[in-house]
Every structure is written in C-alpha cells, then in structure tokens.
C-alpha cells in the first residue's frame, strides 16, 4: 500500500512533466500547423542554459528560472516562428517536419559544441534534500513543486485560451485560419504567440526533468517522443486529453519501475523506458481514421523531373568512375569516410521512393539499417550475397509491422510512429544481448559490438578497402537504377499521385493503404541492405551507428541533396562523406558535427527541392548554351491542379480506362464539366 502510493506520487511527477511538454507541443501544432519535433531540443537547450546560470555561475534559482522560461524561451520561440515557421504555411508536411528536424539537429550540435559532453554536470533539483511526509511516504519538495507547476500549467492554459483575447484568437485560428483574416485578424500573431508559449513550456519541462535523467543532450532532446505519445492520445489537438495521456504514461511508467522485476530479469531492465512508445502505438491503433480532404491548401513546391534510363546510365558511369578514380588516391581516413558516406547513401536511397515519390516521411531509416546489419551479421558466416537478401526481407517485414498502425492515418502519424520505433530499438531492442525468433537464436548488440563479414564478390578481393569502395559504388548504382525503373513504371506514378492528392486517389479507387505499406516495406528493405553493407565496411557493428539520432542528419542531407531524385541521394552521400572527413580532421568539427546538417535542414524551408534538381537544371542550361539540342525537361509532377493531372494518368480506374460512373464522380466532385 505504501509502495503503491509512493509509485503513484512518482508517476504523477513524471506525468506532470510530460504534460507540460506535451501541452506546449499541442498548442503550437494546432495554432501554427507545424509539428515541432525540435520541442525536446528546445527544452534541452533551456535546461543547459539554466544549468549554466544556476550551477556554473551560481545565480539564484529563481532568477535563472525566470530568465530562461519567461525571457529567453519566448524570444527564441518568436524568432523561430518569424524566421522559419511562418514561411511554411503552404509547404508539404515533409518539408515542415524536416525544418523542425533541422532545428533539432542544429540545437544538439550547438549544445554539444558549447557544453563539452564528456564533462558531467550535476543538476540539483529545487530545494534538494527537503522532504515532507504524505501518509507515511516521503515526498521531496521538488516533486511537489513539479506537480504544482503541472497543475498550474493546466489551469493557466485553460485561462489563457478561454479567458483572454489572444487565446480567443488562437482558438479561432485553429478553427479557420482564412476566416480570421477575413475578420481583420492576424493569424500570424497568434502563431507567433503559440511558438512563444510552446518554447516556454518546453524549457520548463526540460529544467524540471533534468534532475531525474541527468543533464545530457540526447536523452533530453528525445523527451519529445514521450511528450508526443501523450499528445497523440489528445489527437494532437485536445489539451485535456493530452493531460490525460500524460497521466497514463507517467503512472504506467512508474508502476512498471515498481512492479516489474527489472533488476532480476535482465531483459526487463529497460522496459519502463519503452512504456511511452508502447502507449503511442496503442493510441495510433485506436485513433479514428481521418477524413481525407481534397483541397488541403497544401500546394507542394517540390517538383522533380522524370528520370530517364539514359541519364541513369550516365550517372552510374560517373559515380563508379569517380569511385575507381578516387579509391587509389585517398588515404585511410578519407577512404573510410567516403565508403561510409556511400553506405549511408544506400540507406538514403531508400528515402527516394518513400519520401521523394510517395511523400511519406520516415525518421527511422538507420534503425532499419541496424536491423539489416544485425541480420546480415548473423545470417552469413562468410559474407554470402544471400545475407543481403535476408537483411532486405527482415528489415522490410519490420517496416511493414511498424507502418501498420499508422498507415491509415495522415503522414505525420506515420512519421511519429517511425520515430517511436527508432526510440524503441535504441532504448530496448538493440540493448538486448540476443533474441530468439521461432527457435532461432539471433545475437544482438548487448553492450558491445557484433562481428560481420564483408560481402563476398567473385573475382574481387573485397578485403581491400579500396576495392570495397568501388563495390559500394556499383551496388549504389544498381539500387539507384532499380528506383529509376520504379519511378518510370505505373507504380511510380501511383506513388506520385499519392503524394499529390490522397483524396483524389482514394476517390479513384486506389488502395492507398496498400500502396503506402508496399513502398514503406520496400524502403525499409533497401535501408536494411545499406545497413548490411555498412556492417561489412567496418566488419563489426555497434548500436550507436544505427541510433535514432543518426537517422535525422541522414534524412536532412538526403532532402537537401534532392530526395526526389536518385542523384539527390548521391549528393547527400557525398555531403555525409565530406562532413565526416571534416569531423576527423578537426576536433572542433567533430564536437558540433551535427550543426552543419542542422543548418542544411533549416535551409530546406526555402529550398525544398534540394540541390540535385538545381544542378541538373544548371547542367542542361550549360549544354544548351553550347548549342546542343536538349529536349525539354520531362516533368509530370503535379504541383497544382491535381484534378486535371489525375485524369490524364493511365492508372485511372486501375486499368487505364475510366468507367462511366467514375467519370461522373469526377465531374461532380471536381466541377470540371459545367452545365
């Protein structure tokens, strides 16, 4: 009984912190339409600044707290809104998410740069050491304060939203942004205010939780996953339900710590950490299907030319040629960097069909790569090519399982589910020493590394690192070629149609869920193959190579390269190789190594197409200037007027012909025929 009370109190403390974080997330998301994945990172940064003021410089706690929460955080939030988020109103969901990921990655880079992660930073709670007795259970003052602040936030937000003018504006913006404009209101002011509130709540949560999970960059940043698990229960818009979600998660987690045999059964050790993620998956499963909307106001600015086989051949020749030319020249370190860049590039290729064509964002491609690596390491004693196949199949299967709960929901939920999977693998699966599947014993990382053999290729000596670089280049091109073929097939057009207008596709009888599931599995499989090849590169694999945090810069650089094109993945790979070379060259770079990709990601807000298409356009302009005849770029991407475009596409009615009835549905709902 005493125990139960103690665990309940502790659960409520965590719940309060989750609730503070999650409500900030919900307020910004509903008011501005941008889901802020950097929410946790903002909290992390706030906690670090607080630490600097309070413990390093010895300021009084309350001054430090007021300065961080009520001055610096809102300024930062307003700045973010004004500089970045404001310009994203008509961007695609993927671009919006990518920009916030850019902010996340940049903040993490900046924090590791400013505060050396190798030093330990004690972070005392408020009034450390003071306790009161509640029904015989000792409760620290700081726990009481935390619960109090949580309750205060609930009341404060309620009052703000329902009793103040700006709150009324915020709710009106959530309801109907255009109508606010028509009434002479300023939705952008409401958005800015919501970002200020969001940042304040994030910092507050970061400062409150730091004493419990220690002041270190990544765990604080990833607090966002726990927070949005609560927010998903509130369907990302209801604050009361979000608070309820936070309470469920906090209590379950506390009871799990208390009542599961975490200290005696070894695999149970990290189960409590996975509770928010498990709750998230359950919540996704029961979340009602969302209505598709035709005119979502979302007009993609992203557009990519259709690849041709000729260009693919030329591109492959260039890539393989480059690898052959560089391989003998590079010294060991850069050679390794370039090879791992190419290996990561293969993982990045997996994003081309998924994100570039299908418009679905995934935040866990490195996790799939890790799964591929583990399976490959286990399946092949001597590096037989069969291992790659097994890696593909297993990663694809896990991909399908992950996507299943979220697949019928909007793209954002799928992205959240992928981040949750990545967290799940980081905190739980990859930390296990082995799993047994159907009586088959597969060793996992445990706390160390797994040995893996290099892929054996007939007639070549792959143990030579220079040769392996060329092998990687060839495989990169082969997979790239497959993706080009996919793009040119009917399936490629279906994917594009899905990205451009889910509503139009659904109306035409396309089974979107099947399409999504298929492309998601394919993509996970490709990532798995990339992971297997990466494992071969260093002949041993460590879990941190495949952590959630590795997926984010990869995603950003792929998008910056131009994720709608295979060549974009190559530019992304090149950039990864270069950045990692830079990192080995100076310690300054290696510390803030994620700063660069972060800034690149932030830049996506204004350049969502990435560089590949610009370079392509530049090249063809160059050729044209030299007098050669270049056919006009073949584009069939619909960036506007989806209705017209869909009608031209051959997949209408799946067999290329439109039935009478379909024609009528089209006419009725699109208003194409008049009179």
């Amino acid at each position, binding site marked *: 009984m005493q125990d139960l009370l103690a665990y309940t109190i502790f659960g409520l403390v965590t719940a309060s912190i989750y609730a503070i974080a999650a409500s900030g997330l919900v307020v910004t998301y509903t008011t501005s339409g941008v889901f802020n994945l950097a929410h946790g990172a903002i909290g992390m940064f706030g906690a670090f600044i607080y630490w600097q003021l309070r413990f390093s410089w010895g300021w009084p706690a309350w001054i430090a707290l007021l300065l961080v929460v009520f001055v610096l955080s809102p300024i930062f939030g307003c700045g973010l809104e004004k500089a970045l988020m404001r310009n994203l109103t008509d961007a695609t969901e993927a671009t919006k998410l990518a920009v916030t990921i850019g902010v996340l990655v940049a903040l993490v880079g900046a924090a590791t740069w400013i505060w050396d992660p190798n030093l330990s930073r004690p972070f005392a709670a408020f009034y450390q050491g003071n306790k009161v007795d509640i029904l015989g259970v000792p409760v620290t003052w700081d726990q009481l304060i935390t619960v109090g602040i949580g309750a205060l936030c609930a009341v404060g937000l309620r009052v703000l939203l329902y009793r103040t003018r700006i709150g009324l504006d915020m709710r009106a913006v959530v309801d109907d942004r255009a109508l606010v*404009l028509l009434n002479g209101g*300023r939705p952008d002011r409401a958005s800015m205010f919501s970002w200020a509130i969001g940042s304040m709540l994030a910092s507050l949560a970061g400062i409150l939780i730091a004493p419990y999970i220690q002041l270190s960059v990544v765990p604080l940043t990833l607090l966002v996953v726990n927070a949005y698990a609560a927010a998903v229960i509130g369907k990302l818009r209801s604050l009361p339900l979000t608070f309820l979600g936070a309470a469920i998660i906090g209590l379950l987690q506390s009871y799990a710590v208390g009542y599961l045999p975490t200290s005696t059964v070894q695999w149970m050790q990290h189960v409590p950490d996975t509770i928010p993620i498990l709750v998230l998956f359950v919540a996704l499963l029961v979340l009602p299907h969302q209505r598709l909307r035709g005119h979502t106001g979302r007009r993609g600015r992203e557009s990519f030319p259709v690849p041709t086989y000729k260009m693919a051949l030329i591109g492959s020749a260039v890539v393989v040629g480059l690898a052959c030319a560089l391989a003998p020249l590079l010294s060991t370190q850069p050679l390794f960097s370039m090879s791992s860049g190419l290996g990561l590039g293969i993982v990045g290729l997996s994003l081309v069909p998924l994100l570039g064509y299908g418009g679905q964002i995934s935040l866990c491609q490195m996790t799939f790569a890790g799964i591929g690596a583990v399976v490959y390491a286990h399946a092949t004693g001597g590096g037989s090519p069969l291992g790659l196949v097994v890696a593909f199949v297993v990663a694809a299967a896990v991909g399908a399982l992950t996507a299943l709960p979220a697949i019928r929901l909007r793209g954002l939920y799928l992205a959240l589910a992928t981040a949750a999977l990545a967290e799940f693998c980081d905190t739980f699966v990859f930390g296990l020493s082995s799993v047994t599947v159907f009586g088959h014993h597969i060793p996992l990382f445990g706390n160390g590394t797994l040995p893996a053999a290099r892929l054996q290729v007939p007639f070549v000596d792959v143990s030579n690192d220079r040769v392996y670089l060329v092998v990687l280049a060839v495989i990169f091109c082969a997979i790239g070629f497959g993706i080009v073929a996919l793009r040119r097939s009917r399936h490629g057009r279906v994917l594009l149609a899905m990205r451009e207008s889910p509503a139009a596709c659904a109306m035409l009888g396309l089974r979107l869920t099947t399409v999504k599931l298929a492309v998601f599995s394919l993509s996970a499989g490709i990532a798995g193959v990339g992971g297997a090849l990466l494992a071969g590169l260093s002949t041993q694999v460590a879990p941190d190579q495949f952590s959630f945090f590795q997926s984010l810069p990869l995603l950003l650089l792929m998008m910056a390269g131009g994720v709608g094109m295979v060549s974009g993945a190559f530019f992304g790979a090149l950039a990864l190789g270069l950045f990692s070379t830079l990192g080995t060259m100076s310690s300054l770079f290696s510390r803030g190594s994620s700063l660069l990709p972060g800034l690149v990601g932030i830049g996506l807000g204004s350049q969502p197409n990435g560089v590949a298409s610009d370079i392509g356009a530049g090249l063809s302009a160059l050729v044209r200037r030299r007098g050669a005849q270049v056919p006009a770029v073949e584009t069939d991407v619909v960036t506007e007027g989806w209705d017209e475009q869909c009608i031209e596409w051959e997949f209408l009615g799946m067999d290329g012909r439109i039935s009478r009835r379909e024609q009528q549905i089209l006419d009725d709902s699109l208003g194409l025929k008049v*009179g």
Partner: protein
Amino acid sequence: MTDSATMSVTGRLVPEPVLAPTPILELRDLHASYGAIEVLHGMDMIVPAGGIFAVLGPNGAGKSTMLRVVAGLHAPSGGSVLLGGRDVVRARPDELARRGVCLIPEGRGVFPNLTVEENLRLIGHLGASMSEIEQRTYEQFPRLAERRKQLAGTMSGGEQQMLALARAVATKPGLLLIDELSMGLAPKIVETLYELVAQIAQDGVTVVAVEQFARTILGIASSAVVVTTGRIVMAGGPHEVESELSGLYLGDTGA
C-alpha cells in the same frame, strides 16, 4: 493599434453612397488561376455603390474565386480590382477587412468551436467596443441572443448563417460580399436570411451576393450579372436577367 487608426484614415470605405461617386467596386480584365489552370478569363464588372448586386452562374463558373480575389484571399494573375477607385490587388485580406470589405465565405462563415459570443468578440480587432457590438447585434438578431453561450458549430445551418451575417454587419462594412448564403438551407430560411440582407443594404451597405436561388436574390437586387466559365456573359437589371434566365440551367427553386 496604430495601424488600425491610420487604416481608417487612409481609406475605409464610406458606407454612404452619396459620398462615393466612383463605383464602390470595379473589376478590370481580371484573370485568376489555380496553378496552371486559369479559371477567370478576363472579368469586367462594375458595382455601383448602394443596393444589392447579384452574381449568378452555374457551378464551377468562378464566382467564389472572384469573391476570394476581391477579398484578398487569392492573388489574381492579371487585371485589377478597384475599391472606391483604388487598386487593391496587393492588399492582404486583413487589411481589406479593416478597410471595410467583408466576405462571408462559401459554406458556414462561422468558427464552429467558438461560442456565438466569442464569434462576435473576434471582430474587436476593428476597434469597436464589445458591449456596443453585442447590444446592437442582439437587437437586430434576437435569435442569437438566446444562444450566446452555444457553440456555433452546434447551431442549425440557418442560425449559423445568421451569425455569419450578424458578425459581418457588426464590422460595419462598406462592401459586403456574400457567397451562397443559401447553401444547404431550406427555401423558407433562405427567404428570411435575404430579408435580413435587404435590410442591411437599406442601411447603406453595398452587397455583392453570389446566389443559386436566382429568383430570391433577383427579387431584392438592384442589378445583376451572369458568370459562366470565368467570364461575365450578361449584365443588367434584375428583370432583364431574370427573363433571360428562365428555363435555363440554374435549376432555380425560387418558391
């Protein structure tokens, strides 16, 4: 604060027709497109100050698009929109609203998750005092007074449109643009609503109304145009237009 004050100095539309010899609204060769698809192909239209100006036409003709362009929600691809003689093509919708252009958009022009009272309170932007607004509104629309604490989304369609009208009127607009007030409503309610619109016009507000209930709107309009596929195909007095329309494709129920 400061900008709303200057705004009213610089050019709030004047409600009294006598003070505005120029047409209150004029479209010159207006083109508009969604992406690559043009839906307005050069519209010329003159709306004199005062009275009700009816815009008729089949579905997809571009009537809503035209109103959205006038209200600043959609940037035209060519031509100009003159409000009281001044080109406002580059103005933002909130600026236009503060200058006295008010659009009741297609569908229900209310915030469904706000109460009636809150829906009205939102127009406090325009500098009017809240108690004054509420008092005047509830006087003119007694039905809303009974429902002030109810969420707008839970009211009947007719009540919602009444609220939309009430809010529009409370902003004291010079030019009121109404897009299919009747959408999804019973003819009886439509009659009532348009009686209210006629009253509003009588108080000196110029009304441009897009409507499918042709007979109803022509009954109170002082002039009318017919739009098909992005062009004005006919303009004239209500009787002229009605005689041309009869038996045509509009499917008017009028009764």
